[in-house]
């Protein structure tokens, strides 16, 4: 009797311990974003005299206004806004195109297999894993020859090319789980390739489209290597512009403006994650080749 009471206390204690630990970890994970937010709301004198974790004494939105529309990035002093727009112009078409191609590919690789399609898929899968440094030099030659070097089109092109392997993988793994009997029955009824896709697969594809869109959006919005290699001063995506702002040596460092700009740069993917984290997690798991 005494033993079991003791055990109960012990197990209660260990649960409290677990909660405390989880809470401390949560604080640690949130610390950087907390520091970003409070720093972006302080004026520069307060940053110089205060400390990292102190809440702002007087809240100012000046750094946000400056980061958005006034900060000097490269030759222009128009803030991060034009580059934010570039990222939208790159991300939206690249995500849509790569998801549509991926859906059709995945449909073929799961439901219309042909001789060699498995080998083809395996070779494509390898494309998900190559370090992009190995295609950087040929790609810069190629988009130069195509006459889209330094343009938004060049970047959309590159992202579609190297995103397709992933989107194909997502859709293929999803469509594999849909019973082939359904497809075969429809084939017997005389339904063709597109009709089956439209009538049977598309109506159940919303979740996988969400996974794919969220995944591609996060990847492309956050991408840096292609962005810095294939863009001009005018077409830089927001990640490249943020790096130029943060690592600029010419002007006096304004950490509050840096932090506001960083928060603006992460806002789209962070919001997408908060709203639809479920799909984000599924994308991560699928990316791990389940």
């Amino acid at each position, binding site marked *: 009797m005494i033993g079991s009471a003791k055990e109960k206390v012990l197990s209660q204690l260990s*649960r409290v311990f*677990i909660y405390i*630990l*989880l809470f401390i*970890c*949560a604080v*640690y*994970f*949130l*610390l950087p*974003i907390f*520091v970003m937010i409070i720093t972006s709301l302080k004026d520069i004198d307060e940053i110089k005299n205060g*400390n*990292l*974790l102190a809440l702002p004494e007087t809240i100012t939105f000046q750094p946000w206004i400056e980061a958005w529309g006034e900060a000097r990035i490269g030759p222009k002093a128009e803030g991060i806004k034009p580059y934010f727009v570039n990222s939208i112009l790159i991300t939206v078409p690249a995500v849509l195109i790569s998801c549509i191609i991926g859906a*059709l*590919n995945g449909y*073929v690789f799961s439901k*219309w297999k042909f001789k060699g399609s*498995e080998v083809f898929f*395996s*070779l*494509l*899968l*390898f*494309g998900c*894993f190559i*370090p*992009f*440094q*190995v*295609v*950087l*030099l*040929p790609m810069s030659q190629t988009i130069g020859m195509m006459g889209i070097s330094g343009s938004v089109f060049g970047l959309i092109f590159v992202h579609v090319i190297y995103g*397709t392997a992933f989107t*194909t993988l997502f859709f293929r793994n999803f469509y594999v789980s849909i019973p082939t009997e359904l497809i075969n029955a429809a084939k017997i009824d005389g339904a063709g*390739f*597109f009709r089956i896709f439209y009538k049977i697969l598309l109506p159940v594809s919303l979740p996988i489209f969400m996974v794919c869109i969220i995944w591609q959006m996060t990847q492309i*919005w*956050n991408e*840096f*290597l292609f962005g810095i290699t294939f863009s001009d001063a005018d077409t830089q995506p927001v*990640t*490249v512009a*943020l*790096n130029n702002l*943060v*690592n600029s040596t010419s002007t006096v460092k304004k950490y509050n403006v*840096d*932090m506001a700009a*960083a*928060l603006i740069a992460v806002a789209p*993917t962070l919001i997408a994650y*908060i709203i639809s*984290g479920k799909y*984000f997690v599924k994308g991560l*798991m699928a*990316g791990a*080749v389940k």
Partner: protein
Amino acid sequence: MKSKLKFLEDSIPKLIVTPTFLIMVIFIYGFIFWNFILSLTNSKILPLYTFAGLKQYFALFNNMKWWLAMENLLIFSSLFIGFCLLFGLLLAIFIDQKIRFEGIFRTIYLYPMALSFIATGTVWQWMLNPGFGLENFMIQMGFENFTFDWIVDSEMAIYTIIIAAVWQSTGFVMVLLLAGLRGISHEVINAAKIDGASMPRIYWKIIIPQLGPVFFSAVIILLHLAIKTFDLVIVMTKGGPGFSTVLPSIFMFDYSFARNKLAFGASSAMIMLFFVMIFVVPYLYRELRKNS
């Protein structure tokens, strides 16, 4: 007429994947080959296709900075993977104890994965800056001799990159392992409990060994992330102080574009590909066999 139509219909699936096939052949395998050809030339600022043999590879292997970059990658990847696995496992186990607000905790641990390395590197660089960051904070708290200046110390700077990278990717390992934990049958665990085994012992002896395949996947993906790491270093240290945080990815970029040694950069990219292949090819082979 009818058979012609039938033929057309049979070819639709192949027609649909043809563009992807061409993309793959040209932009993945063709480009790898092209890059290989470039690495066998003397190209400087522009590509020249005169054969120079393995000259660039010999130059690479005699380049002290390349070995430094490789050494950095070894330190970075081993500690990055080790800590991610350790913290990811602990978080997964704790979260798996029928915790209240599990969703909120999970969301918090994973959110860094949704952010760009450039943005998170910006804030880590600021927090690790001795003048404004943690060091300054501790001094103001009264610890006057506290120093934490790793980011400007060429011996220690690589560890600051590891701190930021582990923070960013631990949540991912947690999610993978949590899914693994939830897939384990409870019968064996309950039997062990009845036999009086303690929970830590059950985890160590029964549960963790069953997570082997998940650990394997996690290691491959983290390794792949480590070899590709580029933006985080660029924004935090630009490879410095000196050359102390340069990784092969940065080395390749620097020589190809800033120092205009295309062929030399191409050869370093081939070596990067080689290392990725060593790990990824057996992994994909195993995954694909498992599925078919």
